């Protein structure tokens, strides 16, 4: 069945330009299309008309690379739960629907063009400590360190984060707490992550604030929109680690003669 869909899309030439919503009408949208394929069709049409096609980020179109994401009627990735926008299909919409598409909005996510934003702030949070410092070649045998299956499974749950930024876009404070907590939890739940656990919590949280993300006030919007089901208890774990580290880690530094 084919539908008529009206799109209002945020168009903005570059980071500093003034943006605005522009209305487009698609008279013949197949229910089997993905949302991004509908935008492909629109872009082909715009190109033929000599207009500038709509810029949006995408790559794998399988819901795993984390490239895609924008707001559909105020919701990151649109209405279907646990689904990135590349996996959202038009059969979930109705003939005549009117949709407003906007980029993820946050001070730490400047708009690059149209629906595309710069999320390199998330990379810098990882660079501040989202790893185990182990050089290539210095590992012991993989089975030398038994890991409780439940811990490993919970670490995997947290590690499933795709870094799309939907959590930030949905948060009234534009906080990156769910993203940061997912990485802190992933490594805190594993024995490999213990040596740097305090340092990691301190540095990653500090970097999050440095980038201009807000504080978490437990609104819970992030969990509701996360396409990978990352849960709020990760934030609780991050806060616990941060608090503990804020006391013990600084004391250690002081004992060693101060920073």
């Amino acid at each position, binding site marked *: 069945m084919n539908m008529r869909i009206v799109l209002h899309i945020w168009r903005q030439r570059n980071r500093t330009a003034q943006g605005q919503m522009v209305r487009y009408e698609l008279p013949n949208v197949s229910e089997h299309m993905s949302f991004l394929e509908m935008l492909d069709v629109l872009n082909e049409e715009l190109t033929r008309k*000599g207009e500038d096609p709509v810029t949006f980020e*995408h790559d794998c179109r399988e819901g795993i690379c984390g490239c895609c994401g924008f707001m559909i009627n105020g919701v990151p990735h649109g209405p279907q739960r646990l689904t990135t926008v590349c996996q959202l*299909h038009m059969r979930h919409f109705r003939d005549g629907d009117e949709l407003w598409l906007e980029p993820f909005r946050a001070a730490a996510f400047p708009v690059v063009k149209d629906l595309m934003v710069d999320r390199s702030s*998330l990379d810098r949070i990882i660079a501040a400590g989202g790893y185990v410092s182990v050089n290539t070649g210095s590992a012991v045998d993989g089975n030398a360190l038994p890991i409780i299956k439940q811990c490993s499974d919970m670490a995997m749950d947290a590690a499933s984060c795709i870094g799309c930024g939907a959590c930030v876009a949905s948060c009234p404070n534009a906080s990156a707490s769910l993203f940061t907590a997912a990485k802190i939890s992933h490594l805190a739940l594993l024995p490999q992550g213990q040596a740097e656990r305090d340092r990691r919590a301190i540095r990653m949280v500090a970097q999050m604030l440095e980038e201009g993300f807000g504080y978490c006030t437990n609104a819970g919007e992030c969990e509701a929109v996360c396409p990978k089901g990352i849960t709020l208890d990760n934030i609780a774990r991050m806060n616990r680690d941060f608090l503990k580290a804020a006391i013990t880690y600084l004391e250690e530094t002081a004992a060693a003669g101060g920073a």
Partner: protein
Amino acid sequence: MALNLDAKIPSGPIEQKWDNARFEMKLVNPANKRKYSVIVVGTGLAGGAAAASLGELGYRVKAFCFQDSPRRAHSIAAQGGINAAKNYQNDGDSVFRLFYDTVKGGDFRAREANVYRLAQVSVDIIDQCVAQGVPFAREYGGVLANRSFGGAQVSRTFYARGQTGQQLLLGAYQALERQIDVGTVEMFYRHEMLDVIVVDGRARGIVTRDMVTGAIDVHIADAVVLGTGGYGNVFYLSTNAKGSNATAIWRAYKKGAGFGNPCYTQIHPTCIPVSGDYQSKLTLMSESLRNDGRIWVPKKEGDTRKAGDIPEAERDYYLERMYPAFGNLCPRDIASRAAKRVCDEGRGVGPGGKGVYLDFAESIGRLGRDKIAERYGNLFEMYAKITGEDPYQDPMRIYPAVHYVMGGLWVDYNLQSTIPGLFVLGEANFSDHGANRLGASALMQGLADGYFIIPYTLGNYLAQVKPGGVDETHQECVAAKTEAEQQMKTLLSIKGKKTVDDIHKELGKVMWEYCGMGRNAQGLEKALGLIPQIREEFWKNVNVPGSGEELNQSLERAGRLADFLELGELMCRDALVREESCGGHFREEHQTEEGEAKRDDEKFCHAAVWEYQGADSAPARHVEPLNFEYVHLAQRSYK
């Protein structure tokens, strides 16, 4: 100019070659490492692991990716797992067995010494990834879990749910971010490589385009490492990410790097079929589904009844019929070709008749719905999301799709291309997989190359050259930059009537029809006539809107398509000359009486390496002979 195809295979018995090579390699002393700069292009498993490891060693690394973050590389989409010869299951695995399986699975078209080394370092990869905190699946006792995969007779595959590629890539990405933090690696994201700079016969840098500002720049280094992935998108529709492209390796080819076995393509049998003209990519459904699903089509041509209305007696379970021993579990290339055959006979199902059923009714009846949901729940969900159909009620529809390329830039044992100082890793090189890659081996190769091979072989190269000596004003740099700028201007000035995708789809149709699952001389010759026409049309009639001084996704795609339009022709040329069937390359003229691939070891037991001879001349074909001393040549059989 003839290519130097000395594979530099080290001396000694196969199990000692890598040790011998490492001992003979020259070293760069720790204090001198920071004097050397290295460019790494691509941040997937191969490039990401390489950039991180080289940074750890103390080299000054510049890493580049076209995505908005190094974590997005397409390695992330790999589902199944990674092989390693750990023998944790006590089931008879060994380095030699993994080596043997890989050589045989590749239909005897890979270099033995490389494959053996791959099997050797596979065990180190698992240790390294565990140490990084990769959450591999575990047993209740806390040890690592394994499964068998891709028809292997041992359980050697390590996995992290259906997201193994994601977790391994995040491990490499985090190691890379750590080096960025300490300043050994400078990261350039949203940068696309447009050319390699060769000075006095050595790779000395690259030309890039900043995809946000459009600025075209030169970056200089003492060596260049490409980990830029495969070129499956030459077919337009594939399981690759939309951005996956051949530009880096193709431009290197045009600067003198030999291209190995371009025609070797892997077509995966279990993907979700095309649903319409707007289709932008194809989605893989893990081949583990074939463990419990039965594949069939109606016996009658053009049967339009619903699957449930077709009685048992009127169904053709063709894999079970044709391959009674392996049945639905026969290898990827065999299953793919059989699906194409029944669809070509007019017995395909679904829109356009391009699909076959993968039916779980019998398994659900035998094991119960819950058991099936436990095994494949996430895959069933994904299928339902994309198609809007419930695979618990109605059989899935599947069709083969392009998934991986075994071809790529030719490299010697040290992963160095025919251009000194240009190293190629992962899917971008012509690989250790011969003519067919086994499941769960792509991740293994990418990480082996990046973590455990390039840190040694690159050091050996750098120890023999002086750092520096070239800057951005060198005439080769200026020429390469000017050429790249000129191409952008040309693409923007055509202002024709067709979009980039219009033309890419035309190329894809030709490639799929004539250089896909089944190939023959007549079809390949036809394609060799059609592709230059499409290419001409592109350069006359493409419409790239916008300008070059801004973010312009149409311009990015146009540049990539320009290269696919040349690469596609080389693939057909290679497929035409290779008058045999091997692995993923099936020449219809060369099959056994039962319709299986028939190799010609007399004439084709070699890697074909193509050398660019200029835009107006045909490329030259050279060969690297392959010797099989440890795994003896034999015909594969799955009856």
